[in-house]
């Protein structure tokens, strides 16, 4: 149900079908999926692949849109890889209203700018917070715990992650 020309790659990971799409035509892909019956956006989030040695990633930030078809009970995951500075992608809040807060949270924790989002401000962190905490190069923070080499590793930004 998704137009073939948009799909870059398709596969199944641990039983979940996923589709990779170019970030430019994310709206077209989601629109065609929505017309195909996937009307519910389960969640939208981002994964930071800084220094991820397990597989080769086309870009650092992977945006994940999980859609569900309530009638046929199928799930599909649309992924888009973004890597500009600041990373930006089109907003889909008019296609799926729940995306409004999800995008604000992804902007707040990852710094992904969603173009023409009505109110792209921080939603979870205090308004004058500096930095985007869920990026891999952001230290876990908190207080240093004596005699715990684990925690020392958290303090410094994981250069090799």
């Amino acid at each position: 149900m998704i137009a073939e020309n948009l799909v870059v790659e398709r596969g199944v990971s641990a039983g979940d079908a996923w589709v990779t799409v170019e970030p430019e035509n994310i709206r077209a892909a989601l629109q065609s999926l929505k017309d195909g019956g996937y009307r519910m956006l389960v969640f939208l989030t981002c994964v930071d692949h800084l220094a991820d040695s397990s597989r080769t990633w086309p870009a650092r930030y992977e945006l994940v849109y999980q859609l569900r078809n309530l009638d046929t009970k199928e799930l599909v995951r649309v992924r888009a890889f973004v890597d500009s500075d600041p990373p930006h992608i089109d907003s889909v809040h008019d296609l799926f209203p729940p995306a409004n807060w999800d995008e604000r949270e992804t902007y707040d924790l990852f710094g992904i700018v969603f173009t023409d989002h009505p109110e792209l401000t921080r939603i979870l962190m205090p308004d004058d917070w500096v930095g985007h905490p869920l990026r891999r190069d952001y230290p876990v923070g908190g207080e240093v715990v004596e005699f715990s080499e684990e925690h020392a590793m958290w303090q410094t930004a994981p250069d090799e992650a």
Partner: protein
Amino acid sequence: MGVEELVESLGNQVLTTTLGKVVGWGRGNSVWPAQFGLACCAIEMIATATAGVDIARFGSEAMRASPRQADLMIVSGRVSQKMAPVLRTVYDQMPEPKWVISMGACASTGGVFNNYALLQGVDKIVPVDVYIPGCPPRPEDLLNALMILQERIKAQGIKGPQ
């Protein structure tokens, strides 16, 4: 204005023990907590206020919503960085004499979450009188902390917490 300024001005020789005992007894047995329920410990605080483990036996079941009528703040739950100024504001708006119980590991030390988002211990922004370990502590632990606080209030007498 108040008797304790008078007492200090007379250099504390004046015998106020009986009055202090009466005031301490009065304050101790009617400690009204401000509802500061944040996370899981708040559910255990509600469970303490219900019939099973009755906090009313200690005169504290009137959980006041507004800080104006409260003299004890039970910080029950994890205090995030965004909530810290609000907690300090509510603490400031409580009339003296006021006490603070830090309920649970998250309020006392940040607990399981040692990361950027949590205030590692509420004693960084408000003076705490009694800490309760546990995540969440049992309702009986909260009553135990309340009894410890009551002894301390009775011992403080007129001057209240310094």
